[in-house]
């Protein structure tokens, strides 16, 4: 091959390359990408919060996952003489440490109505340990669904139909697999436990 030949070939390739790059984009291509990038941006703006979803009787509830220390198997609760009441249930062994066990059912004045939506394949009661300012509390849940990334702006106000206790302690409702879930106000719950039941 001579030098000229190779030059010739190079210029041909270059022309082909330019043609390829200069061709107009297919129909709808630009719009599509613009839309995609715009959507991405929106996703960033949306504030999501990990919440732990669980069930008490027939009520599905959630608390912010950041205050949950751990979830363990169901354990027996030892009453504390003169202290145990409706809400403060007693002491429970969590990994070798004695923690204070409370009943969220009583705090939220929940009743067993018998009709429940079950989300898990096998239902196990669990102990949920959550951290307060000066120590942890444990409560028993009838079923734990898991952590759900909640988009905070999808949170709706609690309807007027819920009980007063529920209305006081929930920050709002969201929908998960067609079930209404109440997001609990853990600060108010901790405050209430500390000031009223300890």
């Amino acid at each position: 091959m001579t030098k000229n030949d190779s030059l010739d070939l190079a210029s041909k390739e270059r022309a082909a390359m330019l043609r390829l790059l200069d061709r107009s984009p297919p129909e709808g291509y630009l719009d599509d990408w613009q839309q995609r990038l715009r959507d991405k941006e929106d996703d960033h703006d949306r504030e999501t919060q990990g919440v732990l979803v669980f069930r008490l009787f027939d009520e599905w509830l959630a608390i912010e996952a950041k205050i949950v220390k751990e979830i363990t198997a169901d354990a027996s609760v030892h009453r504390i003489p003169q202290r145990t009441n409706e809400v403060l249930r007693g002491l429970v062994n969590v990994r070798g440490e004695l923690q204070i066990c409370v009943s969220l059912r009583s705090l939220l004045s929940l009743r067993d109505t018998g009709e429940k939506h079950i989300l898990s394949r096998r239902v196990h009661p669990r102990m949920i340990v959550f951290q307060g300012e000066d120590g942890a509390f444990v409560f028993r849940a009838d079923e734990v669904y898991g952590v759900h990334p909640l988009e905070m702006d999808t949170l709706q106000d609690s309807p007027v139909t819920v009980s007063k206790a529920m209305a006081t302690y929930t920050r709002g409702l969201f929908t998960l697999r067609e079930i209404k879930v109440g997001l609990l106000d853990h600060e108010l719950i901790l405050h209430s436990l500390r000031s009223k039941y300890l």
Partner: protein
Amino acid sequence: MLDLYQQEVETQGAALNEGLVAWESDPDSADVDALMRAAHSLKGAARIVGLDMVGKVAHALEDLFVAAGKGELALGSDQLDWLFNAVDVLVESGQQTEEKMSAWLSGNAEWSEEVIKGLGSIQTKATEAPKPEPVPAPNPEANTPATPPAPSTTYTPPEQTPDLSMIDLFREEAKQQMGDFQAGLESLDPASAGKEQLEPLMRAAHSMKGAARIIGLMAAVEMTKVIEEAVNAAIAGKIKLADDHIDHFKHSGEFLSAFSAAPDEALASWPQEHADDYSSLMDGLHRTLAGESLATAAPEPEPAPEPAPPETSTPPKAESGSSLPPEAEKAPAPSKAKDRAKAAASEKSKSDGVVRVSADSLNRLMGLAAETVVETGQLENFRDTLLRLKQAQSDLNSRIDSSQRILDQLELDAESRVHFEHIRQAAQQALTLVREQLEHFDNFARRNTLLSDRLYREVLSSRMRPFNDGVQGFPRMVRDVARTLGKQVKFTIEGKDTPVDRDILERLEAPLNHILRNACDHGMEMPDDRQAVGKDPVGSLVLSARHSAGMLVVEVKDDGRGIDCDKLRTKIVEKQFATAEMCEQMTEEEVLEFLFLPGFSTAGKVTEISGRGVGLDVVQNLMQQIAGQARINTEVGHGTTFHLQVPITRSVIRALLADIDGETYAFPLSRIARTVRMSYDDLKTVENRQYFEMEGQNVGIAPARAALGFGGNTSSITPHLDIVVVNDRNQLYGVEVDTLMGEADLVVRPLDKRLGKVPGISSASLSEDGEPILILDVEDLIASIDKLLSGGARLETLRSDAQEEVRDRKRILVVDDSITVRETERQLLENAGFYVEVAVDGADGWNAVRLGEFDLVVSDIDMPRMNGYEFVSKIRNDSRLGKLPVIVVSYKDREEDRIKGLEAGADYYLTKSSFQDDTFIQAVKDLIE
């Protein structure tokens, strides 16, 4: 860095004290090199953390050791006093927290100078004359600062008549506010301080002012007012604060703290008694407010509440070394050294010499280790299952083997035979596999059980420390005491490595201190007296520790004059503890027991060394608390031995487990007299009280359920009663439980602090299978039983009636960050018949108001976390609370503050002066009645 320095001082300081004590008793064998090295390291360490003054002392000490090492000087006890003083400076410097350091440095500069001079004089003396002489007292004039010029303006404290009804609350508040104030100052850099740094100061001063006004401490009101104004001026940028202003604020804060801590009866006249301090502080504050610099002002008077500031004309007191008249021949060092040593002993940090682990983390480790043991226990179950599996597999195999014979009789084609052969082989393989697994598992379980057991024991024993860690201060203490008394004592510690629970070790310190001082003071004779009776003039005092039969035995043995039991008998009769006839009957041991009674002291006179109001009863108290025993052996003329027997650890107790109302409780074995299982027929009843007879004594019975406050009767169908007989001060009580379950070793866990004291319960534990157990507080339980037996149980119903009544009253929430204001408002409102709850700031109030179903809210404006404006707007914007009446009560009385408060949604805006008349109550009634 300071943390490291503290650790270094702790180690080297102990080495120095120990070395010097050894030197004094035997100069020839002293390890001067080690002392020199210790002083040298401390010098370096002090310089690294920037404590130049301390570095200088260490340097002087090091120089002296170098000279002594070369044999240039010999040191007697008088000279050593200076050395001990120097060590005290070093040790104390290591006990200051970062916040306290600067105050300590300025407070002790003079003392350090004196010590450096003292050390220097030893060295000069040594070079001038080979024979050392007593250290001359330092010239007081040299160090005392010239009398400061009087402040330019004199402020006289205002007259006041404090109202003491709420003084305790005020003290609490003053402590908190002044703490915040000092903390705020500490972190303040005047050059860059902005609004955020200054505002907490303003708030603290403001709250303090309000609180002081309620009590009527006008001097404090005046001072906080100027502070608040000055800080406000600084926030507004009207004045610039410099370091000297900040220092002045600190001193003012200290003045206020000292003032509020003064005893009730002294409060009224306190400002007058400290008029000079008050005047100069006020002068400085006013000048701060005026924007003047304080740098050229007179030096601050000592801020500490010392009754005699240096510039007064009070004659010099012996307690301050520098003001001793120069003609005093004896060095002032001993008395000073003693005070310091005492202070050091009480402040001695209880930290670990090796690593610092937080108690929380240790508890968690203990929990995890215990849980590991429980979990490993479950391996046993798994092994049983494996065993059953192996058994089943063996059965299967033998069935297959026996079917082989049946198959042999049948005519089978080759293919079927091969098929059955495969089945047989597969079954054989499965059996082998199961056997192997079982063996593996056995080994695994054994290793794990061993490991978790070891882990658990190791964690438990990590609470142990060598005995020496708790008694390091004693050689120096004994040396100082003996020297002050003019006695000669050789003190030895035996069994330094004996492991002792750190809790027990800490608690032993005070009683041992007491016993050792007693031994020096009363036990030891003067050297001449000892010689006269043919003893070595140097007395021997031995402190020893050893383990014996699962207990820790600590002994203090002296070879002094012993205790004369006949004299003691006379004393007992004199003090009317027993009659003469009874005394005659008592054995020597019984007579000696009287020494442990409160108010019984053999000291003829109260001296400073011992007999300071606390007797040997501190020893006895401790023994009761930790289930130990104390005994005295003595022989007249030959000495006395104190014999303390205490449990090695308090973290594991032996206990009796019992079922009470379906749950497990534990009785500490040390509190149980015996257990009884009796039939109902043996039960007797008198006036509705049940009792039974035991060894001729009637023992009252109370059901544990009732004593713990559980309703219902024992629901047992057994024909007998299980009773635990406990004793308390020789009185027996029967506690009826549902079932006795047996003994166990329990690892004691503290109850969650948030629960406070639970009646009848002392602590908690876990059973072998991980179930919670509560450990009973027997004394407390007996108290409730007593109440039950005397019919006090009806109290419960009375209380619920009272609660019923509360429900009808109007409910008011009081929100204020000042405890004094809060409680004043509460009292006013409760007196007017309202039910009151309180919250400590806006955020707390916001939580409370949503839960409480209140009829009215009373709120302050200036509060941390959420201020009153924000709080009120939040209420107004809430759909459920929007109509709740709110009264704002503030110190701010300007019209614009008023408008701001009302705009936020308050129904009334009152100032705190409204407490004086009935404006406040009237406003409340207007809104809700």
